[in-house]
């Protein structure tokens, strides 16, 4: 594929310059695709771009374990937003990363209902228009349903949960060392499906951080449409505080600032 070829060329260039310890991307071997650290130009032939994995989380681990080194990353819009949110939380140092920015295709953007299907600097691909929240199925559903219908919808969805913690484990912004979802005070142990608090606590914790990468949806074995809930919360953050997640590292979450710094309507 042409796009993968362009990414390979840029990765090769970065590796030749010798500034980075490796380039993190996806590699296809024996018909399976997974995250791979390309540390020499020899194996770049296996570099591919799909299916998409959340590489930001891997980045964070590698940077933490190799404090002195720089890392190249093949990054889509969602990877970059996740890295920016991690940087706000002091989890990654963006100056140690060389991003190879890949713009998603229109079909990919539609599939994820992605509002920003491209990183700030695009090295490969053409940027396409993001999907506005108002045009998503989620917005339509939210506007049609009243409280009773919403409760029925979410109670049914949450009742399928097998408490695998996959949503939390893949989430690039779920980075707490001690997780409330593992604390028996808030979520009872040994109960499946878990209490509704499991989902509500997680939804609240990511309300001001969720970058809409869709990794939780993809990892859910029982198809709970989590991003529908999180997308609504993202939209509320925008409506209430004009806050957009993952776009500007200097823009702190309004939930951590005072009313002078980020006012709330009516106060």
């Amino acid at each position, binding site marked *: 594929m042409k796009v993968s070829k362009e990414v390979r060329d840029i990765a090769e260039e970065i590796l030749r310059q010798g500034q980075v310890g490796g380039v993190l991307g996806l590699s296809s071997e024996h018909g399976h695709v997974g995250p791979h650290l390309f540390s020499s130009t020899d194996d770049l032939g296996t570099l591919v771009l799909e299916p998409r994995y959340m590489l930001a989380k891997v980045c964070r681990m590698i940077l933490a374990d190799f404090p002195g080194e720089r890392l190249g990353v093949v990054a889509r819009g969602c990877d970059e937003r996740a890295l920016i949110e991690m940087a706000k939380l002091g989890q990654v140092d963006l100056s140690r990363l060389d991003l190879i920015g890949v713009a998603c295709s229109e079909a990919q953007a539609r599939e994820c209902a992605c509002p920003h299907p491209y990183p700030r600097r695009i090295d490969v691909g053409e940027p396409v228009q993001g999907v506005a929240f108002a045009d998503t199925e989620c917005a339509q559903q939210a506007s049609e349903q009243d409280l009773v219908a919403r409760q029925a919808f*979410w109670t049914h969805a949450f009742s399928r949960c097998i408490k695998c913690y996959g949503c939390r484990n893949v989430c690039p912004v779920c980075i707490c060392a001690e997780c409330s979802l593992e604390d028996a005070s808030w979520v009872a142990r040994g109960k499946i499906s878990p209490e509704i*608090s499991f989902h509500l606590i997680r939804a609240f914790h990511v309300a001001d951080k969720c970058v809409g990468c869709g990794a939780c949806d993809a990892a859910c074995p029982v198809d709970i449409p989590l991003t529908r809930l999180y997308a609504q919360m993202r939209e*509320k953050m925008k409506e209430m505080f004009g806050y957009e997640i993952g776009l500007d590292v200097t823009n702190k979450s309004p939930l951590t600032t005072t009313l002078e710094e980020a006012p709330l309507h009516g*106060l």
Partner: protein
Amino acid sequence: MSERPFQPRIIAFCCNWCSYAGADLAGVSRLQMPSNFKVIRVMCSARVAPEWIIKALSSGVDGVMVLGCHIGDCHYISGNHRAAKRFAVLREMLGCVGINPDRLLVDWVSASEGPQFQKIVTNFVERVAVLGPGKAAGEQRAKGTSELNGLTQQAEKRE
């Protein structure tokens, strides 16, 4: 015997510096108000974690109040700023999953506002009584209620 009207169970998180003192004042002034609520004293309204409210609502509590100092009067300068924003977002989230956001109230009561405390509590209890039992709890309500009774008894014993 006539059917007793629905008596909501309500938890009020009151900050140590203003609203708890306000509640105290309402008490010593012998102001009449419904007795459906339990006060939990916290150091600041910002100390109230969303987990607490979510857990309360999902284990059989019908309404939660978070009462802090008036904006500008916070003992910790801007604690209540964070509480105001945090719970405004939490209210929106409850609405998204179909739990009536009116079950969560955030308001401000100063140490001298006994009557204000009385008014807020009375209005909130009435409002939640109209909303009916918190369905967020579902089948957990029975269990949650016994848990809650246990906690109340423990608290009473300590006092």
